C-alpha cells in the first residue's frame, strides 16, 4: 500500500504502441529507450522461434506435449527483461519462452516435456523456479522466496507468473494477501490470454478486470496491453522498481490472447471460432514491435540478420538437444525422494535393479 497510491487499475489497458506500431499519443507511461526495445525485439523473435520449434518437435514426436505461448511473447519477454540477475522468476508450464529468455538452456527447460524428468534445470543457476504445473501454488513460493530475501536485507524482486484461470484458485488470493501483509517484493504478473483450456474469461470472473482483484488485498493493480512489448516492459519495469523500493507487491494484468490451442492435444475449434481469433492476428506483438523499430529506422538489416541468427541458433540447439533418443536411468527414481534413501527405498531400488538385470538391461 504505497502511500496515497490508487490501488485501482486504469480504466483501459495501458498502451504505448498501437496495432500498427505507431506511438500512442499522451501515454501515461515512460517509453523505454531504443536499445531496450531492440533487446525486447530480439527476445520476441527468439520467443516466437522457440514456440514454433517446440511445436515442430511435438509433431516429430520429440516432445510429449507443448503449451505454446504464441501470441504472448511480449509478456514472456517482458517478464525476463524486467528482472535483474539477483531476482527470481516463477514461471508456469506456458512460460517456456520466458525461462529461455532468462538464460536457461532450452534443452534443459524441455526435459519436462520430453519426459526425461520433471524439472530439468537447476533453479538456483538462473534463479528460475521449476515451471509450475499445478495452478497458482507457485505464487506462494514466490512470496516465501521474496520474504526470505527481505529478511536478509537483500533487494531481490520476485516475478510470479500465472494465467487468468489461476486467478480463480485459492492460492492466488492467499499469495496476494500474504505478500501484501508482509510487504513482500513480488510482482504478480497475470497473462490473461482469455482461456483456461476451453473455459473463457467470462466464466472465471465477474470482476471488471483481473487487476481489480488487487484492491481487496491492498495490492496496486495495473492493466497493460499484453501484445504491446514496449508497454509490457514499461509497466513491468515500474512494478519491479516499486517492489524493489519497498512499496510491497504489485499486480499486473496483461491482456493478450492464446493464439493456439491449450496444447497440441487440445482442439480449440470445439470452443472458439475463427472469427474470434482473426482480429488477434493483426495484434501480433512481434509484428507490432518490428513495425515500430523499422519506422524508427532502428532495426538495420545487419541487426535483423544478427537477431535471426541468434533465434536460429536457439532453434538448432533445441533440435540437436532433442534429436537423440534418451534412456533415463531407472535407479534415479529412488535417488532424490529424500536427501538419502530410506531403508525401504533402498530395498525397492535393489528390487528394480534386480528385475532389470534379469531382463538383461
Amino acid at each position, binding site marked *: 500500500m504505497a502511500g496515497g497510491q490508487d490501488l485501482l487499475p486504469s480504466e483501459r489497458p495501458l498502451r504505448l504502441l498501437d496495432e500498427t506500431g505507431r506511438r500512442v499519443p499522451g501515454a501515461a507511461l515512460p517509453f523505454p529507450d531504443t536499445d531496450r526495445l531492440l533487446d525486447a525485439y530480439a527476445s520476441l523473435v527468439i520467443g516466437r522461434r522457440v514456440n514454433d520449434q517446440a511445436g515442430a518437435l511435438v509433431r516429430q514426436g520429440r516432445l510429449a506435449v507443448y503449451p505454446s505461448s504464441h501470441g504472448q511473447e511480449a509478456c514472456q519477454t517482458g517478464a525476463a527483461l524486467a528482472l535483474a540477475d539477483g531476482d527470481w522468476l516463477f514461471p508456469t508450464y506456458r512460460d517456456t519462452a520466458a525461462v529461455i529468455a532468462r538464460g536457461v538452456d532450452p534443452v534443459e527447460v524441455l526435459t519436462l516435456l520430453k519426459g526425461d*524428468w*520433471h*524439472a530439468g534445470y*537447476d*533453479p*538456483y543457476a538462473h534463479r528460475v*523456479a*521449476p515451471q509450475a504445473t*499445478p495452478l497458482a*501454488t507457485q*505464487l*506462494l*513460493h*514466490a*512470496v*516465501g*522466496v*521474496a*520474504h*526470505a*530475501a527481505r*529478511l*536478509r536485507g537483500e533487494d531481490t524482486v520476485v516475478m510470479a507468473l500465472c494465467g487468468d484461470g489461476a486467478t480463480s484458485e*485459492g*492460492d492466488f488470493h*492467499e*499469495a496476494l*494477501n*500474504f505478500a501484501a*501483509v508482509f510487504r513482500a517484493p513480488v510482482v504478480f504478473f497475470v497473462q490473461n490470454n482469455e482461456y483456461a483450456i476451453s473455459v473463457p474469461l467470462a466464466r472465471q470472473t465477474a470482476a471488471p478486470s483481473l487487476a481489480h482483484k488487487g484492491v481487496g488485498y491492498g495490492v496496486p493493480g495495473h492493466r497493460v496491453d499484453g501484445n504491446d512489448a514496449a508497454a509490457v516492459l514499461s509497466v513491468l519495469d515500474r512494478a519491479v522498481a516499486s517492489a524493489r523500493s519497498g512499496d510491497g507487491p504489485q499486480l499486473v494484468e496483461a491482456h493478450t490472447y492464446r493464439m493456439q490451442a491449450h496444447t497440441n492435444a487440445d482442439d480449440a475449434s470445439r470452443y472458439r471460432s475463427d472469427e474470434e481469433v482473426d482480429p488477434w492476428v493483426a495484434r501480433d506483438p512481434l509484428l507490432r514491435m518490428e513495425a515500430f523499430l523499422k519506422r524508427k529506422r532502428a532495426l538495420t538489416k545487419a541487426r535483423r540478420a544478427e537477431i535471426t541468427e541468434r533465434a536460429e541458433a536457439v532453434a538448432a540447439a533445441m533440435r540437436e538437444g532433442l534429436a537423440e533418443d534418451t534412456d533415463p536411468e531407472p535407479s*534415479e527414481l529412488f*535417488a*532424490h*525422494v*529424500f*536427501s538419502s534413501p*530410506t*531403508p*525401504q527405498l533402498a530395498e525397492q531400488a535393489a528390487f528394480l535393479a534386480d528385475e532389470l538385470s534379469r531382463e538383461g538391461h
Partner: protein
Amino acid sequence: MATDPTKLTMAQALNQALRDAMAEDETVYVFGEDVGPLGGVFRITDGLTAEFGEHRCFDTPLAESGIVGMAVGMAMNGMRPVVEMQFDAFAYPAFEQIASHVAKTRNRTRGRVGLPMVIRVPYAGGIGGVEHHCDSSEAYYAHTPGLTVVAPSTVADAYFLLREAIASPDPVVFLEPKKLYWGKEEVDLTAPEPGIGTAVVRRPGTDATLIAYGPSVPTALEAAEAAAQEGRSLQVVDVRSLVPFDDATVCEAVRSTGRAVVVAEASGYASVASEITARVTERCFHSLAAPVRRVTGFDIPYPPPKLERFQLPSVDRILDAVDDLQWEDQ
C-alpha cells in the same frame, strides 16, 4: 539448554526445542496462526516472539495453504521454516502444497532444491475436542512419498525429535499428540534419544508385542501393566518414526514374542496400523503364532466429545485383542 534432568511437560519440551533451535540457527523461523504474542493455542511457541523478535516468530493471515506455501519459498531461499497447523483437520487446506510441493520438490528438481522445513501438527483426540479438532491424519502424510513423518510419545522424544526434524535437510511432518501435551516427565535434555527412523522398545516383554505410536503408546503401556498383573508379559514398541519406518526393530521385537497387536487411534481402513500389520506379517510370518491384530478407531468420522471414548483404543480393547492371539494352540 538445561544441563540437569528436569521435569517438563511435552508442551514445554517442544517449546524448549524451538527455543534452542532458534538460538542455535538464525535461519530457523517459526510462523503460523496465533503463534506470536499469544504463543499458540497450545502455548508451544510461548515467549518466542518476545525472545527472538517479531521477525523470527510471527503470526500470519489465517490461511494454511498460504502458510505452507510461503514456507516452501522460504526453505527454497535459505531458511528453515517451522510452521504450525493449529489443529490436525485445519491442515487440510494446505494439502495440495504438502502433497504436490513439500513432498516432491527435491525429487522434481533432481535433488537440487531440498526443503528443510517442519510442519507441526497438533493431532489426534482424547481431549474432548469438538469436530475438526481431533483427526488422526497421519496416513495422508505417511502415504505421500517425500515426507518424513514423526509422532513422539514421550517428553524426551518431543524435544529431541523436533530438534532433529528442524535440522533435517528433508521436510518433516511433526505430529504432536494433543492429549500428551500436559503430561510431565523427567527429562535429560543433554542425553539424546535414538533418532528419526528408529523405533524403540518401551517395555520389555516375552508373550506378545504391542506396536503403537504417538497418543497410543501410553495406552499400550497401561495395557501391558494390566496384563502383567494377570501374569502375561507384553512388550511395547514405540514406532516414533512413521516414515522412515524401522522394520528391523519392530520385526525383531515381534519375532522375539511371536505375537503382535498394532494399536493406533486412526480409523483402521487403509491406515498406518494396516501398513504395519502387513509389513510385520510379510516379514515375520514364520515367527508368528497368530495373525497380527489391530486395535484402531472405527471407520467413522471422529465422534463428538461425549462419544469419543468409544473411538479410542482402550486398555480393555488391547487386552481383548491380546486374548485373541490363539493362546490355546500353544
